[in-house]
Structures are given as structure tokens and as C-alpha cells.
């Protein structure tokens, strides 16, 4: 399993946090929400991939 995925997602989270503050400070709140949503979609795509990989490993290992 790759540990660097954790740091990648943490970096995305921090980036989105900074962007949100920047955008909301300059009055463009709707774009801040769009940035959060796109980041969430990217993160969820990675999460779903990792979870399906893990559950396939569990299925093979325990013969479920």
C-alpha cells in the first residue's frame, strides 16, 4: 500500500483550505464552493479506488 497517498490528500486539503480563504476574502464565495467540490470529487475517486483494492484483498484472503 502506498503511504504517499496520505500526504497527497493532506496537501490537497491544505491547498483547498487556503484557496477557500483567498476566494471568500475577495468576495467570490461561489468559486470557493466550486473549488471545494472539485477537490472532494478527486479525493473521493482516490478513496474509492483504495477501498475496492482493500476489499478485494480481503475477499481473496478469507475466501469470502
Amino acid at each position, binding site marked *: *500500500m*502506498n*503511504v504517499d*497517498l*496520505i*500526504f497527497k*490528500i*493532506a496537501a*490537497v*486539503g*491544505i491547498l*483547498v*483550505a487556503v484557496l*477557500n*480563504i483567498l476566494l471568500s476574502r475577495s468576495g467570490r464565495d461561489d468559486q470557493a464552493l466550486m473549488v*471545494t467540490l472539485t*477537490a*472532494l470529487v478527486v*479525493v*473521493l475517486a*482516490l*478513496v474509492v479506488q*483504495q*477501498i475496492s*483494492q*482493500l*476489499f478485494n*484483498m*480481503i*475477499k481473496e*484472503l*478469507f*475466501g*469470502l
Partner: protein
Amino acid sequence: MEIILKAAIVGITGTILALVIKKTNPEISGALTLIICTVIAGMTLKALTAIKEVLELVELGTDFSSAYAAPILKCVGIGITARLGSDICKDSKQEAVASSIEVCGAICALYVSLPLIKTLLRMIGELA
């Protein structure tokens, strides 16, 4: 053997990172905790494959047929997944979802061990 060290380090650093981004966007920190669980579970499952080989050796040696060993392994797998799923839901304060996953895990374990229960009842019937 160093898997436990790696798991502890990954867990601690990951939770700190999740705390950093929890205030501004909690959903990404929830996803981060999920990824930490999958990474650590992935590591432990690699160690479990060695244990499984020993189990198969035991099976070959004695006449402990795989009809008995398979439900045991399946129950262990169901227990692990149910526990992991329900605790992740409890993290984001979804108690109802967590308890429904636990109920589903219990019933699946029971379902898997049905043949064992049937053979047991048949044996008892023959004794009587």
C-alpha cells in the same frame, strides 16, 4: 515484524494531518482518515497471508477437512470488515449506520456458519 512500527507511525502522522484540515473542510479530513485505515489494513493483510499458509499446512497434515476451516476463516474476514466499516462510520458520528453494519456482519457470520450448525445437529441426532 516492523509492520507494527510502520502502522503506528502512519496512523499518528495521518491523524495529525487530518486534524490540520478538519476545521476548514471536515469532509476531506474524513476521507483522509479513511485512507489511513485502508493503508494500515493493507499492511496487516500482507502479514496475514503468511498465517494463512500455516493454516493450510495444518489442513493438509490432519484430516481437519476444509469444510470446517473455511467458515472459520470467513467469520474472521466478516468480523474484520464489519468492525472496520462500523468504526469508520462511528468516527463521523453516524451511530445508526455503524450499528446497522454490525448487525449485517453478525447475520452474515451466522449465515456462513449454517452448514456447520447443520452437521452438528445431525451428529447430535445420531447420538440420541
